């Protein structure tokens, strides 16, 4: 962090606690300029991380991050905060593992406690085919040096004693993929950490600034949009901005933005719901995922159980909780942990997810020059935030697609070269 940054420390915490003094704002409210070198649409984790690495790794600081709402108001502030790297494809594994490494040092790098809890991650198998996929994943993982192995029910019981591993349940647990480096991170802190650091390095963070159109010239579509053209800027609710590079980091809204540039995406938007219970004494040491039961659960440091599931089956931009979700969730969780039947749900919420056909993201350049995407993050984009920012920044700064994200280019859909991650990402995010 540069000199002028307000550094957090234990001493400052103590002083503020004793004097009840106010903390300085985490980021400025910058002036709205009409030209930037890079405009990033979407002030979630991905947009902010991209801005941060542009500024810190590449010295590109004439950057604006625009959000129609508030920073972290999308999926970045709504997710269940699970991080892991035990994916299925070699491309996916390498990518997510780099992100875990960045999470490891993040608290120091950003001078903010992001509460990374490496508590281990268990994916349960209730069928032979699930067990087979887990062996496959474990082998792919091990080959890339990732701590990941298949364990049997008695070892599952040791890792998470509250699970019912008896053979008498409706869907007996046959084994699990165990991934000790996985865990949870405080999602808001990650958003605030990147925002604060990006701001300190000169990036302009504009909230309440909605992008209404992407300005292009030379393309084959109407108004010069579409393949063959190039980006000249964006039209926002606060005026036009000209910029040679515009990056789409809008997750659930990604198609709407991309259509503005004449670049349709292989994405449909689905809500994903989550819920928390009242707090109890901490009894669940790991993250537990069950693909067959469409549910996953972890316990926060405060003692609440956090539940999640698969996305809602009907694509929509409307985020509201449904009874179907709560009902199914409760039934399935009780299959796994009959002991918690008296616990009450306190809250339930929902966020938009940008689902792709192969459960992998869409990243990098597009057929419109200067228009880049970092989207298709579906239900797994929280863990990928740091590495996405790092690789997108490198791609923008060098003008060359970073090697790590090359497999995720939009062209894979027209070339028929998909990166199938459904086996590792459909339920466990």
């Amino acid at each position, binding site marked *: 962090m540069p000199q002028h940054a307000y550094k957090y420390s234990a001493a400052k915490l103590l002083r503020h606690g004793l004097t009840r003094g106010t903390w300085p704002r985490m980021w400025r409210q910058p002036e709205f300029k009409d030209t930037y070198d890079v405009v990033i649409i979407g002030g979630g984790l991905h947009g902010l991380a991209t801005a941060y690495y542009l500024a810190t790794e590449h010295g590109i600081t004439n950057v604006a991050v625009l959000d129609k709402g508030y920073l972290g108001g999308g999926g970045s502030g709504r997710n269940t905060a699970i991080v892991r790297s035990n994916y299925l494809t070699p491309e996916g594994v390498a990518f997510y593992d780099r992100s875990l490494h960045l999470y490891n040092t993040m608290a120091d790098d950003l001078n903010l406690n992001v509460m990374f809890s490496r508590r281990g991650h268990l994916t349960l198998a209730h069928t032979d085919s699930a067990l087979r996929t887990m062996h496959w994943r474990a082998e792919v993982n091990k080959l890339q040096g990732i701590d990941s192995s298949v364990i049997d029910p008695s070892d599952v019981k040791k890792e998470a004693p509250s699970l019912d591993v008896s053979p008498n349940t409706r869907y007996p647990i046959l084994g699990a993929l165990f991934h000790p480096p996985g865990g949870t991170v405080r999602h808001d802190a990650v958003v605030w950490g990147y925002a604060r650091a990006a701001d300190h390095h000169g990036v302009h963070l504009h909230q309440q600034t909605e992008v209404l159109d992407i300005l292009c010239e030379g393309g084959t579509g109407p108004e010069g949009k579409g393949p063959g053209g190039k980006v000249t800027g964006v039209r926002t609710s606060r005026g036009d901005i000209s910029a040679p590079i515009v990056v789409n980091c809008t997750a659930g*809204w990604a*198609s*709407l933005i991309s*259509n503005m540039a004449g670049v*349709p*995406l*292989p*994405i*449909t*938007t689905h809500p994903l719901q989550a819920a928390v219970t009242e707090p109890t004494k901490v009894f669940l040491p790991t993250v537990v995922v069950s693909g067959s039961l469409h549910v996953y659960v972890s316990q926060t440091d405060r003692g609440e159980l956090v539940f999640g599931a698969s996305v809602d*089956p*009907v*694509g*929509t*931009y*409307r985020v509201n909780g*449904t*009874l*179907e979700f709560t009902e199914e969730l409760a039934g399935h969780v009780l299959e796994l942990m009959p002991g918690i039947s008296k616990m009450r749900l306190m809250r339930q919420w929902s966020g938009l997810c940008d689902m792709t*056909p192969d459960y992998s993201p869409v990243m990098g350049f597009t057929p419109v020059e200067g228009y880049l995407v970092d989207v298709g993050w579906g239900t797994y984009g929280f863990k990928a935030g740091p590495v996405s920012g790092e690789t997108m920044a490198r791609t923008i700064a060098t003008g060359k697609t970073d090697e790590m994200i090359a497999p995720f280019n939009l062209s894979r*859909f*027209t*070339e*028929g070269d998909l990166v199938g991650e459904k086996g590792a990402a459909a339920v466990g995010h």
Partner: protein
Amino acid sequence: MIIVPCPHCGPRNSVDLRNCGEVVNRPNPDTATLTEWRTYLYLRENAAGWVSETWYCRAGCRRYFTIERNTVTNEIRDQS
């Protein structure tokens, strides 16, 4: 809850049906180029607003039909 009016079974909870997504025109498989075919398979408008979409009445008459739904409010209106 989204109530979907099946033309054969009447109003039903959407969980009884499958949402097959926005209506996309299928190119002729005999003449389409690979790019055209993959565009049809994967690319979507994913619009926010009124969208024509296909539903499959999974637990009822097992027929496919098209309706218009507003993807921002989930209101449904008749195609006609």
